[in-house]
């Protein structure tokens, strides 16, 4: 892989957008944005914006996917055609199918599936604007939308991406760092339980770098977790006041 970045990714310890290696982009979130959905959330990590909607628990269609003793979580991660520099063909790619699967597996570990036998919980994720770290932004959005739908969960799930520029481990990759960096380590964390729910790795990493990446992800998750709680509380307070 000899892809050369058009501009240096790290100069004097600062990244292309002026951030320090461990600095996360501003995170904003809004819960309950789609009236039709049972739960929804809009989450932005810098310029990456993801909209999540939860429908369910509801009757599975097609019927044969029903599991008798618990709910099935279905996840569709999808990038809007206008979310990228070049138009993205809206047909699902192998990448999107894989991401949908790993996000599903992350969420399944925290939802109390046994409370909704024979039903599905559908999570739809649309990346509206992509600037790196879309899968971890999606997971944060999905978790908020599930909470907004009132689905009981063991924990909130926080997504954080970690990457590498030469030997420097960085947090929350933007598009340039994603395309031209030396590695990518998306992580999702059940914050209160200290569980890793999603972890993938791309690139060549020393075992010690992976360890540091995990530590940085947990550190970054703290703040996002607090934001998530505030966003949910705000939503419930608004309902109470009504």
């Amino acid at each position, binding site marked *: *892989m*000899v*892809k050369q970045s058009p501009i240096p990714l790290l100069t004097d310890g600062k990244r292309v957008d002026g951030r320090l290696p461990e600095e996360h982009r501003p995170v904003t979130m809004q819960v309950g944005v789609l009236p039709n959905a049972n739960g929804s959330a809009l989450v932005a990590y810098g310029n990456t914006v993801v909209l999540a909607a939860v429908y369910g628990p509801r009757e599975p269609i097609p019927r044969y996917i029903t*599991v008798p003793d618990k709910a099935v979580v279905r996840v569709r991660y999808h990038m809007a055609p206008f979310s990228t520099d070049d138009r993205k063909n809206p047909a699902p790619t*192998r*990448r999107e*199918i*894989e991401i*949908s*699967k*790993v996000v599903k*597996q*992350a969420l*399944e*570990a925290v939802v109390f599936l046994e409370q909704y036998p024979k039903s599905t919980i559908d999570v739809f994720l649309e990346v509206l604007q992509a600037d790196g770290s879309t899968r971890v932004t999606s997971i944060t959005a999905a978790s908020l939308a599930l909470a907004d739908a009132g689905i009981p969960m063991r924990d909130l799930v926080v997504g954080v991406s970690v990457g590498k520029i030469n030997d420097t481990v960085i947090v929350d990759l933007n598009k340039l760092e994603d395309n031209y960096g030396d590695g990518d*380590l998306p992580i999702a964390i*059940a914050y209160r*339980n*200290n*569980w*890793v*729910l*999603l*972890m*993938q*790795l*791309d*690139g*060549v*990493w*020393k*075992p010690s770098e*992976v*360890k540091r990446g*995990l*530590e940085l992800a*947990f550190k970054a998750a703290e703040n996002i977790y607090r934001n998530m709680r505030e966003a949910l509380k705000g939503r419930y307070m608004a309902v109470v006041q009504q």
Partner: protein
Amino acid sequence: MSSYPFEIIPSLRRDTLRRMISEGKRPDDRQLISMRDLTIRVGVIKTADGSALVNLGNTKVIAGIKFELGKPFEDTPNEGNLIVNLETPPLAAPTFEPGPPDENAIEIARVIDRALRHSNYIPLRDLTIIPGKSVYTMWVDIYVLNHDGNLIDSSMLAAVSAIANAQVPRAIIDGENVKLDKSTKIPLNINPQNMPLTVTYYKIDKYLIVDPTLEEEVMSDGRFTVASDGENIVALQKGEGYFTPEEIDSMINNTLSIVKDLKVKVLEMVKTPTGSLLF
């Protein structure tokens, strides 16, 4: 894998298995962190440019390599293309259905793809014919023939073995035209020390096991794959369940030593092509 929602294990059997695992035992007398018997035979398919048949216990996976002419990607004008595809044909398990690769098959293929790409095992630069214009496209087609658990590791073994066995048809350049001469083949010059392998851990209660049989796999609560060349980590993939940072740390460290030992065995087994397809 999650594609077996209706693979049913009686709860009595399930309880027994869980108790055994908690005592460090397994039904086939293995340790928690040990693999089933492995045999690899390369050169089993005459029509392929490279092939390998892997038997890992009762799991059987075959991989075939094919070279075609292709165009390089714009950002890598000096590299051949690598495409990894995995099929789960219905003959391999009662729960497999005909059709294009499902999410399970796509996931495995993509993890193997990432591990191969980052390990530098395949000399992709050697697969350039005319820089920026014409390169080889290397297809790694993995076929599951009998599924008895641990498809990720057995597919990875099949892929690296078939690649070790690969012969590249000679490219004939005639002005602007490029053709492949299938009658003259040159061995692919792999970097054996960079051979990546995966070790997939399955969690049953709080215990981690490797190389599960289908039964163990179906009743497991978590899955985590570590791909390594023995030195560095070249891919990770968390599947079902949850893992603590301490567990991840220990899986990574275990993998480094398992891969180092396993690589020696694999490199030995891929040395001499057998040519026979008998299982």
